[in-house]
Each structure stands twice: as structure tokens, then as C-alpha cells.
């Protein structure tokens, strides 16, 4: 009973909050873009007075699922093509624009982890953590392992399929896992000191795409945000966090 009342009060409060506040632009964006997008937010808001950009960060596959279920979103920013295609298939998006690329790296905890290169991923007893196969970062990582010719042995060492790429960073930087494959841009200052980064010589090029939802009540503003990502300001903010131009 008490719980119900608290819940009701919470629902009522959150329902009132939006009124009279700034115009909200709702952006569902891939987790790996978090720092870069938050970084370009003040600039965009300064040039669009009265607008408040509200981010919903999660794995692209989660966001695509939310969009298919009818979540109120103005802009969808995905970390790979299949998830954008999934959102397009739901009928709420017409077309998407590519605005950045990323690259994969191998990470291992600082100290003696026994991993000096991709070849060591096949060593018996090593604890490898990847994002799950349906998570973009996990799908790319598996392609990379195939190209390196260590897929079978490395996947035998897999101890966890994380729900998003930051989960991999977390498990490796905590020292619980010996190695993981993540985007170069996931090495934020908060974790950089705990990780050793090794290059991966693979031909895998994760792309980032953005799209305006067809049913957005503010299509012009949404389109302006997508243009911002492709424009000089957005590209500078993205480059600062290690993203490559499209």
C-alpha cells in the first residue's frame, strides 16, 4: 500500500515536470557516443535558445527495440548499420546519415595479464570478455577475431557476453577479465589509467549513423541536430573523443 502511494506520487511528479520547461529534443544515442555528444550539447543548445537536448544512452540494440515499441524519440543515433536498419524496418525512420567511424582495440588490465597481442587471446585459461553477439561492439569483435585467425580458440576463452561495450571496459579495468575488445573511443580518462591498449590490425570499420524520426513533432530541430553531428562543430567534438570522420 505504502509502496503504491510512493509510486503514484512519483508518477504524478514526473508527469508534471515537463510542463513549462524548455522545449525538449529527445535523442536516443549509442552508449559509445556518450562523452562526445554530451560534449557538443552546450554549443548546440546555445545556438538554439529554449531547447534542452535530452539524451537516452544505451546499447543501440536496446534503443532500436524501444523505437520499434513506439518510444517518443526525435533523433536516433546508432553505433552500427543493422540496428539502424532494424529501426528503419519499424517504419518510423526513412533514411539515416553516416557521420563518424570508430576502430577496435584490444584492452588488458595494467600489470602482468599475460596478453601482449591478439595471438595471446588463444592461450588456454585466459579470461576474455566481449560484448554479446547482438551488441554492435560484440559483433565487430567477433569479425575481428575471425580476421586474426584466433576466433575459435579465443571464443573458447570467453567468460561473459556483456550487454554493452562499457560492460567490457568495466570487467577488464576491474581486473576481473584478462582481455576484451572495445572501441578506441571507450578509453575514457576515468579508465585509461587502468588499461593497457593494444592495436588490432583488422579491417573492421564501425560506422555511426543518425536519423530523424518521421513522427517527431519538431523535425526541423531534429534535422538541425543531425546536421550538427556532420558539421564542423560536431566533427571537432567527435574527433576530440577519438572518433574518425565518416
Amino acid at each position, binding site marked *: *500500500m505504502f509502496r*503504491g502511494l510512493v509510486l503514484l506520487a512519483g508518477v504524478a511528479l514526473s508527469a508534471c515536470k515537463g510542463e513549462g520547461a524548455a522545449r525538449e529534443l529527445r535523442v536516443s544515442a549509442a552508449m559509445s557516443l556518450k562523452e562526445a555528444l554530451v560534449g557538443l550539447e552546450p554549443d548546440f543548445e546555445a545556438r538554439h535558445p529554449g531547447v534542452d537536448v535530452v539524451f537516452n544512452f544505451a*546499447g543501440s*540494440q*536496446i534503443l532500436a*527495440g524501444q523505437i*520499434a*515499441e513506439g518510444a517518443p524519440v526525435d533523433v536516433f543515433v546508432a553505433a552500427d548499420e543493422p540496428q539502424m536498419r532494424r529501426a528503419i524496418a519499424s517504419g518510423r525512420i526513412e533514411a539515416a546519415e553516416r557521420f563518424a567511424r570508430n576502430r577496435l582495440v584490444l584492452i588488458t588490465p595494467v600489470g602482468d595479464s599475460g596478453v601482449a597481442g591478439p595471438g595471446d587471446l588463444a592461450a588456454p585459461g585466459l*579470461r576474455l*570478455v566481449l560484448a*554479446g553477439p*547482438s*551488441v554492435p561492439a560484440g559483433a565487430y569483435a567477433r569479425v575481428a577475431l575471425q580476421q586474426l585467425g584466433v576466433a575459435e580458440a579465443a571464443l573458447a576463452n*570467453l*567468460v*561473459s*557476453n*556483456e*550487454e554493452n561495450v562499457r*560492460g567490457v571496459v568495466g*570487467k577488464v579495468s*576491474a*581486473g*576481473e*577479465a584478462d582481455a576484451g575488445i572495445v572501441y578506441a573511443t571507450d578509453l575514457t580518462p576515468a579508465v585509461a589509467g587502468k588499461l593497457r591498449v593494444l592495436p588490432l590490425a583488422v579491417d573492421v570499420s564501425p560506422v555511426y549513423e543518425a536519423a530523424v524520426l518521421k513522427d517527431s513533432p519538431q523535425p526541423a530541430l531534429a534535422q538541425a541536430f543531425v546536421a550538427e553531428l556532420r558539421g564542423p562543430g560536431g566533427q571537432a567534438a567527435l574527433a576530440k573523443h577519438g572518433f574518425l570522420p565518416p
Partner: protein
Amino acid sequence: MSLRTGRPGQAHAVLGVLGGAALVFFALPLVALIGRVTPAELWAQLGAPAVQQALWLSLEVSLISLGLCVVFGFPLAFVLARVAFPGRALARGLVSLPMVLPPVVGGIALLAAFGRRGLLGGMLERIGVVLPFTTAGAVLAVTFVAMPFLVTTLEGALATVDPRLEQAAATLGASRWRVLWTVTLPAIRPSMAAGLALCWARGLGEFGATITFAGNFEGRTQTMPLAVYDALQADPEAAITLGLVLLAVSLTLLMALRGHIGRRR
């Protein structure tokens, strides 16, 4: 208060309407879920090897954890209810904490204690015990989150047992164990059933602490809730079906447990 001034019929109507609204609130989402799946789909999912694996792992993990909760939780509840010791209030608070803590935080805390670089990690590794990424780790995570439900329920029940009954049995020559077995336990039987059911059901539904501490790997640490979340990434319909399977299993076992143990003879 105000219910008392009105006629009893009025009070019942008010309680009925509000209680009914609460029931609809709980039931509606579950019914909506059922509406999304055909029995054929449900059956097909139940037969899928990955689903069976997750289901069995869930049962295994939650039942081992329930065993641990009984073995360690019952004595803890007894001590908290019956033994006055300095710091009892703090101990009670600590025991309740996992119930209000976000399970993910519980998982991080478990890593800090039992992880490779955790407080006891080095010691555990020396004796060959590895918890993260293992089924044992999943059991530990589930136990951490679920045990408080048993302990607090039992503690509350033990506090209500009339001590004169136990004293009477003792003066008649019954040993302490016999008093516990023949007087105390029967007196708290319904609460025991409720506590066990809650504890077990909470364990069966555990997600956050498990994925944080034990990771997500099929057949090893991927219990049903993790499998549901996994399916949601790729195939939302499958996730709904899996969720329903979990729901059906939980409901069946909850009703069975509460129905059997909870009944007073």
C-alpha cells in the same frame, strides 16, 4: 481514521475499489504480456535448448541459493530476534540493505569483496576458488540479494512467538532443540513459507547483481532473467515468450510453496 466514522459498507467499498485498482495495476501488464504470445510459440520456446539450459540453470542457482539462505539465514534471524548484543540495530540495517540497494551496486560490492582484485580475491585465488564468471559466483550474487527477504520475514515472525509457550515446554523438560523444533518452528510456519517463497522468487528473478558480479554466459551464469535481457537485444518477441516462461514457473512454484508449507494444520 475516517473509515471508522463511515458505515462498514462504505469502508468496504472504498477498500474494494482501491484494492481492485491495485490488483488491476499488477495484473494488467502481465495479461498484456500473455496477449503477445500464442501457446504454440510458448511451447516452441520451451523446447529450445538455450531456453531449457537457462531455465535449469536458474532453478539450480536459485535452489542452491535458497539452501544457503536457510542454513545461514535462519540462525541469523534467530540471533537478531532473540539475542540482545551491541550493534544489533546496525546488524539489522546491514541485513536489510541488499533489499533497497540497486542490485547492480550489490554486484559491484561483491566484486570489491570477492573479485580477483577484491578484499578476499587474492586469498580465494590461492586456494583455487574463482567466483566471478562462474556458476558459484551466480549463486553468491543471488544469495546476497535474496537472503534478506528470508531473514527479515523470519526475524519478524520469531519476535511475535509468545515466549511463555517456549518456557512452558522447557519446564516440561524439552531440550532447546526440541523446543525449537516442536514449539517455535510450528508457530512461525506461515511466515516461514512466506519467507521461503519470497526469498526463492527474488532469487529466481535476480538480474543486476548476477550480471555485474558473475557476467553473462550461457550454461554457466546466464540465468533466465539474463536470457530474457539477451533475447530482448536481438528478438523482442522471444524475450516476451521467455519472460512468460519465467513468470509461469515462478507463479506455479510460489503458489505450491505457499499453499503447502503455509497451511496450518
